[in-house]
């Protein structure tokens, strides 16, 4: 036998008898002894009793021994060679200094490992040493590179994830016996808020001691916008509060001005007085967005001297500013069916917040005592002065400015004109007090109206038909039903109008378009406009030169057509006036409102043609415009048959970018916005957290030390597992002749003594 091949042994039994049979035999043996004991109760001589009982017991034991066939089993075993993982933090925060004016944390870690390399190599006797670099994930590392200092590039730190990855996976079937984590502890994943009970349980479940060396002593001087809390959207003209969290480390007694910018322009600011011993400040920044759309906002703190990280001093976000409701001011010169039906339509629209004023008295009337009337003063100053800009659209229905000299409404007409130019919307609806009949041709409103009123003329009072102009066939305002033919049919089926104010179209280049005209009413040899629109400055205007548009609803309903056309016309007109985004032919939307640095921005563009159908094959372009108005990336694409085009643009770096999309052949560009995250979690908080690493070591039975100043701790490691790896051999110990002889002797001895002492 080659005894050297076996390095372990254990006792076993070789009997073919089943366990229950052995148990019965054992009971029988015990019974034999017990019977002997009972039979000897009358024996007075203790020596005799003891001798006989001993012989009976020895016989029972020997018989059992021979029946059980005991043996020694020789085994060949080995200790499994386990793994020991060295995990080195490669996240960006390791690039910060280990202490003020010291080397980087990464370099300090490299230096420690370099000096401790011999000690780590000695572990090779007990385990295979594996080297890993981790950040948001974990990957094998070259020990030579690690000892020189790993380049700190990873955008996040996930210590628990790295430990779990190394323990469970890595393609090895061997067990992890221990780990050494070298990090600044600035975890921003599962352990971002410290080692909670759940994380502690997960660590313990790994079943290995985690040794830790923390790198970095004190937080560097840093001012950061750590967090910005704001809803995804806000309502125009409603105050919205952006709650920024300012983190200041290493500063005291300084005043910091935090600003909120919308694409470069400051819209709100707040001053924070830094206090010693406090590092987080909540800064509310309130403002009321004055226009709808998607905008990039940036919260920024100044860069103070001595700051380690400057990228985290600003943080951008995208805010969609929408209307809560379209706010419309309706002013009517007298009660009429035209304003009655228009007001009813607007009033029923849940998306419209309507404020209306009707002039209920004329300048010659005599209704009786004022206190018996429900009339109110016309608040000219309020609605045409300070409140004007709070309206999305102003609608004049047969409203004259002139008769009320005491109110001096004409003084406010320049305000109304400027309101339009600055992005407001004005609709003038006809009547005997409107357009030229109301002498608007000589007022500032003539600068913005889509038609030229002919002052001093009177309305044409004939029932007359109207027609769509070429512009009207394409315009969303006059689109009653989809398709050119059906739309023309729909318009031609409407009742004629009964009166038309005399106006002229504006010359080309003024941004105006006549959408409907009246061939039966000629002004200067050309059909009088009936519906016209104009883009003027940043605003829009609409002219409806009749007081009979109500006939398109109520009168049409008599013929069984219902009032859908009337409702559709005025709804479209209002949506166009207030620039409802859904009415723009070109739409642009980024795939996500914010992207990580270096990632491309996916952009979807939807293009519609003049007929409002998908503009298949249309070339579209999109560019990213930086906060300073400079284009930084541009791309082109062709719309597919659904009118959709996709392209990707790569922003040059962190910041806020406006997306401007254009279609070939001009037209209004579409805009959107996207933010490229400037400060990732690594830059946001550069403070080392040795207490986290210490807690990890303590929770797992590992050892801990801290740099600078410390050294590699004595590494704790689980004992290697022993496994049987192959051969075994059973050496019987029962088949010796003297065991049988001894049994025969004890039985014979008892028999002889019993005969002699008179028991048989």
């Amino acid at each position: 036998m080659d005894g050297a091949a076996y390095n372990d042994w254990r006792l076993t039994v070789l009997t073919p008898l089943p366990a229950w049979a052995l148990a019965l035999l054992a009971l029988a043996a015990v019974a034999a002894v017990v019977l002997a004991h009972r039979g000897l109760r009358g024996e007075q001589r203790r020596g005799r009793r003891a001798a006989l009982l001993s012989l009976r017991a020895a016989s029972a034991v020997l018989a059992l021994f021979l029946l059980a066939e005991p043996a020694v089993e020789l085994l060949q075993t080995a200790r499994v060679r386990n793994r020991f993982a060295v995990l080195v933090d490669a996240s960006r925060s390791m690039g910060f200094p280990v202490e003020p004016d010291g080397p980087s944390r990464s370099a300090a870690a490299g230096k420690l490992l370099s000096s401790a390399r011999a000690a780590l190599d000695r572990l090779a006797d007990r385990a295979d040493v594996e080297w890993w670099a981790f950040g948001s994930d974990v990957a094998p590392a070259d020990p030579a590179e690690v000892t020189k200092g790993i380049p700190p590039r990873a955008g996040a730190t996930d210590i628990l994830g790295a430990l779990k990855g190394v323990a469970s996976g890595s393609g090895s079937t061997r067990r992890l016996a221990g780990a050494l984590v070298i990090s600044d502890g600035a975890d921003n994943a599962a352990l971002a808020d410290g080692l909670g009970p759940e994380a502690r349980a997960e660590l313990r479940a790994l079943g290995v001691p985690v040794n830790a060396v923390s790198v970095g002593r004190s937080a560097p001087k840093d001012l950061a916008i750590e967090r910005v809390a704001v809803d995804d959207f806000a309502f125009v003209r409603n105050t919205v509060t952006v709650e920024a969290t300012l983190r200041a480390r290493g500063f005291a007694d300084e005043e910091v001005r935090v600003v909120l910018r919308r694409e470069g322009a400051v819209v709100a600011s707040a001053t924070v007085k830094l206090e010693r011993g406090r590092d987080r400040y909540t800064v509310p920044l309130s403002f009321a967005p004055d226009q709808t759309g998607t905008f990039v906002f940036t919260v920024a703190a100044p860069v103070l001297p001595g700051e380690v990280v400057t990228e985290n001093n600003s943080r951008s976000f995208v805010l969609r500013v929408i209307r809560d409701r379209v706010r419309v001011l309706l002013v009517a010169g007298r009660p009429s069916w035209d304003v009655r039906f228009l007001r009813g339509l607007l009033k029923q629209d849940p998306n419209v917040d309507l404020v209306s004023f009707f002039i209920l008295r004329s300048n010659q009337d005599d209704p009786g005592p004022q206190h018996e009337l429900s009339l109110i003063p016309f608040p000219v100053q309020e609605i045409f002065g300070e409140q004007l800009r709070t309206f999305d659209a102003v609608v004049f229905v047969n409203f004259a400015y002139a008769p009320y000299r005491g109110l001096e409404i004409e003084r406010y007409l320049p305000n109304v004109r400027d309101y339009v130019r600055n992005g407001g919307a004005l609709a003038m609806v006809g009547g005997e007090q409107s357009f030229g009949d109301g002498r608007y041709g000589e007022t500032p409103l003539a600068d913005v109206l889509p038609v030229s009123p002919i002052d001093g003329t009177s309305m044409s009072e004939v029932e007359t038909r109207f027609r769509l102009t070429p512009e009207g066939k394409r315009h969303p305002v006059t689109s009653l039903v989809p398709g050119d033919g059906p739309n023309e049919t729909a318009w031609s089926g409407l009742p004629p109008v009964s009166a038309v104010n005399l106006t002229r179209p504006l010359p080309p280049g003024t941004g105006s378009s006549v959408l409907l005209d009246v061939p039966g009413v000629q002004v200067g040899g050309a059909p009088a406009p009936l519906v016209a629109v104009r883009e003027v400055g940043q605003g829009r205007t609409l002219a409806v030169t009749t007081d009979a548009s109500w006939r398109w609803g109520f009168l049409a309903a008599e013929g069984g057509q219902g009032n859908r056309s009337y409702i559709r016309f005025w709804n479209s007109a209002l949506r166009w006036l207030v620039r409802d985004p859904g009415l723009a032919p070109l739409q642009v939307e980024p795939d996500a409102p914010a992207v990580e640095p270096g990632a491309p921005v996916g952009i979807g563009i939807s293009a519609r043609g003049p007929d409002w159908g998908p503009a298949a094959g249309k070339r579209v372009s999109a560019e990213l415009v930086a906060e300073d108005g400079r284009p930084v990336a541009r791309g082109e694409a062709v719309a597919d048959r659904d009118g959709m085009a996709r392209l990707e643009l790569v922003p040059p770096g962190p910041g806020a970018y406006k997306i401007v999309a254009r279609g070939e052949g001009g037209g209004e560009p579409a805009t959107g916005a996207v933010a490229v995250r400037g400060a990732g979690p690594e830059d946001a908080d550069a403070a080392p957290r040795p207490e986290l690493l210490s807690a990890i070591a303590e929770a797992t039975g590992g050892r801990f030390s801290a740099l600078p100043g410390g050294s590699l701790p004595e590494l704790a490691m689980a004992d290697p597992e022993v496994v049987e790896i192959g051969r075994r051999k059973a050496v019987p110990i029962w088949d010796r002749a003297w065991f049988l002889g001894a049994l025969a002797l004890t039985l014979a001895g008892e028999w002889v003594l019993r005969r002699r002492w008179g028991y048989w």
Partner: protein
Amino acid sequence: MPSGPRLATRRSFLGGLAAALAAASLPRGARALGDASRLAVGHVQHGGNWNPRPSALRRLGWELTRRTSIETTNDAVPVRLDRAGLHRHPMLYLAGSGAMPPLSEPERAALRRHLQYGGFLLVDSADGSDGGGFDASVRRELAKVLPSAPLQPVPRDHVLHKSFYLLDRQGGRVLVKPWMEAQALDGRLAVVYSQNDLGGAWARTEIGDWEYPCTPGGEPQRETAIRIGVNLAMYALCTDYKDDAVHLPFIMRRRS
């Protein structure tokens, strides 16, 4: 919205109007207002005595023009419910004295459509009946025209009572009921019914005499009837305008 500035007081308002007159920039009537743009009430012809007070609507129109900025045509326009052109007159007037023969089904359907699309009907009982005569006929017809909108008394605080005048009583040639009744559609009064012979209180001869005395209240009762007529026309043209929040503080002050 807060109340207006000092300049927007009654005195300044009237001052402004006086100045406007003086300047004669837009004196009333100087502008040609065609009949198409004026309020022309459609006077419904039916099989009964449909025009018991022939001068009533003309007089109401005159009062509207005199008291308000509403411009009316000289006369109401007789309309038949089953003839084309009914919708040219969103405001209809249905009067009668004595029993009215039933409307035909097409007439009822046409009236129903008119009201459902935003029309307004004033029903005026000239015979002072209550439970019989015109009252019984018209209640029967209205129930058939708008079966889902039963006639209900108009509450005292309804906007109809403040659409121009602040009213807290009823008027008419007689006072059969101290309230008016109405049928509402979509929150709007589509039909208003008076049993107090409003037309009888409005009616005036060519030489300027009131045709009927008003009992029991005399001339104040007539004035109230005229004011109700003004408010009804205002309501037809402005609906709930006076319920807008901007008016409430002023109205509350004057009511108190």
